């Protein structure tokens, strides 16, 4: 395997971070597991600003998945404070969380998670369906997003007619389409060969430079190196938080 070449510092543009998007403080997450209780997060505080490119790292069991679910508003903390754009996420019910995910967060999954029977355009449109956008407008926006990831000529292909890299691009277009506050990518290159992985990371870099806020969760040092800031977790606690 050829390790992906780290971009030379000369080509790196680091944007000035904007206003606070995510503000979590002393977040604890407990999972009951039979008679035992798992302490997935033992008190994590983290601030993420607009225009940041952040990597969350940690070995398995470090609580990075739990933190990602929390940041993605898929889950709420057991105790602690979580504010997203100044709104208190910890107190939201299921449908309010769905609404935040729909409008503020763009998800990119390791396994792409595209709808197998829908073409690229329909897949990208889906978040807009849930936000109640009219069909014509929806299609325009989805085309725009697909063009932004370089798939303008693959709109009517179904996932099984696309390569892995193309599928992940569709998923990224889907994450972008609602113009979210953050893009949250969970091991986005985990199912791709290193060449394609590099291309996808280049796309993230490109998106970051065009003004998006990106959070990548990964256990690969090479992937994390693309980010401008790396947060490391260990045993449910923040271990290190370093700007590169």
């Amino acid at each position: 395997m050829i390790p992906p070449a780290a971009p030379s510092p000369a080509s790196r543009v680091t944007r000035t971070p904007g206003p606070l998007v995510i503000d979590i403080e002393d977040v604890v997450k407990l999972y009951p597991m039979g008679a035992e209780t798992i302490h997935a997060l033992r008190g994590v505080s983290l601030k993420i600003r607009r225009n940041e490119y952040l990597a969350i790292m940690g070995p398995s069991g470090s609580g990075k998945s739990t933190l990602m679910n929390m940041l993605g508003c898929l889950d709420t903390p057991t105790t602690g404070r979580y504010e997203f754009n100044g709104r208190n996420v910890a107190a939201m019910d299921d449908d309010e969380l769905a609404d935040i995910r729909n409008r503020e967060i763009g998800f990119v999954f390791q396994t792409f998670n595209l709808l197998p029977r829908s073409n690229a355009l329909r897949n990208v449109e889906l978040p807009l369906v849930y936000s109640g956008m009219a069909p014509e407008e929806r299609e325009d926006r989805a085309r725009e997003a697909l063009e932004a990831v370089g798939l303008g000529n693959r709109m009517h292909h179904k996932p099984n007619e696309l390569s892995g890299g193309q599928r992940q691009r569709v998923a990224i277009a889907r994450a972008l389409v609602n113009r979210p506050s953050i893009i949250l990518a969970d091991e986005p290159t985990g199912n791709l060969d290193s060449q394609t992985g590099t291309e996808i990371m280049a796309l993230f870099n490109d998106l970051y430079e065009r003004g998006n806020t990106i959070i990548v969760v990964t256990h690969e040092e090479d992937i994390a190196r693309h980010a401008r800031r790396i947060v490391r977790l260990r045993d449910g606690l923040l271990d290190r938080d370093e700007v590169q």
Partner: protein
Amino acid sequence: MSTHRLLYEANESWRIAAAQIRAHKLRSLLTALGVIIGIVAVTLMGTAIRGMDISFENNLAMLGDDILYVQKWPWHNVEDWWNYANRPPIRPEDADSLNRVIASTPNSLLEVAVPVCARSATLKAGDAQVNGIYTFGTSGDYSRILAVDFREGRLFTGPEADAGRQVCVLGCDVADALFPGRPALDQTVLIQGQPFRVVGVLVRQGSFLGLFSFDNQVLMPLGAFKKYFGVHSTQAEVRVKVKDKTRLEEAKEELTGAMRRVRALLPGQRDNFTINEQQAFKEQLDPVKQGIALAGLFITGLALFVGAIGIMNITFVSVRERTREIGTRKALGARRKTILLQFLIESVSISLIGGVAGVLLTVSLCLGVRAALPSLPIELSPALIVIGLFVAVGTGIAAGFAPAWSASRLNPVEALRYE
């Protein structure tokens, strides 16, 4: 905004449901089978009951829905037959008495009373002979209550009847049996050995509830009937036509009063006659209809229940197979309602396919039976088709609700992690 969103989500769900069914054709078809059977059962049963109704209405029309029958016996079964057996017989002359009472009553609801006597007779013409023919003696007024048309000729006139002329009107089966292939009009038939001239032949009417045929009868003037056959006490009756059939009950009361006057009954005495009307038949048929409907409902319910279990099962399978997809949708902003709606639409789609197939099957069955047996009064009503489809949709919702609910409640984190 919110209603738009729901509409877009529903559209998306229909699309996904269609794709899902296309992708699992056999599975969907097998699942829909239970609903197909249920819907065929519900629509066929409805058609059968309706057919019975139509046939019954047609039959009742033969009796005349504006005719009251003054008779010794009621048309329904009686437990205490001895109370009826001792009643005096109805006599043809009672009709004349009733007509006098009617004439003297201002604003009477009754139009005319007509005597009818009946017996079984043997008819001969040349070598042809028919036995056991219902032969009626009546007055010229019979034309005022007779609800049928003539194939040839006419009814005997009042003067003919009063004069006791030996003329007769034949039912079409009798005419065809005695005069095959040639007109019966003005021919002579021997009724119990007495010569009668044929003045008319009735058009075909069919049988009444399959009990007796109107085409197997012969009408003759009452005078001639009395002269040759005498009056059989139990067979005589008086038929009374009412002016306004919407006021049948009042007319019945008036007739009861009139008949009590004719019979000179004192206020404390019970009626010694019965006034029958076609309604009595209806009341007798109702329990039969209800029984059929109940049995039908049970069979239908059973079939639909089995169909619903099938749909519920397949929807649970679908939810399980697509747990990751549900998680993805939730991550992308689908709310509980959205997921619930999506799986309900999927289960309703399958049962609606079953419903449409069932309705089509019933329609083709009905058309087939009607082509094969034109005499059966089969008519599939549009209302029944709509009901069938509604039942299918209802089944889909009922069957899909539990799996759809469980899908909507899935934790997105666990759903996304599901292998």
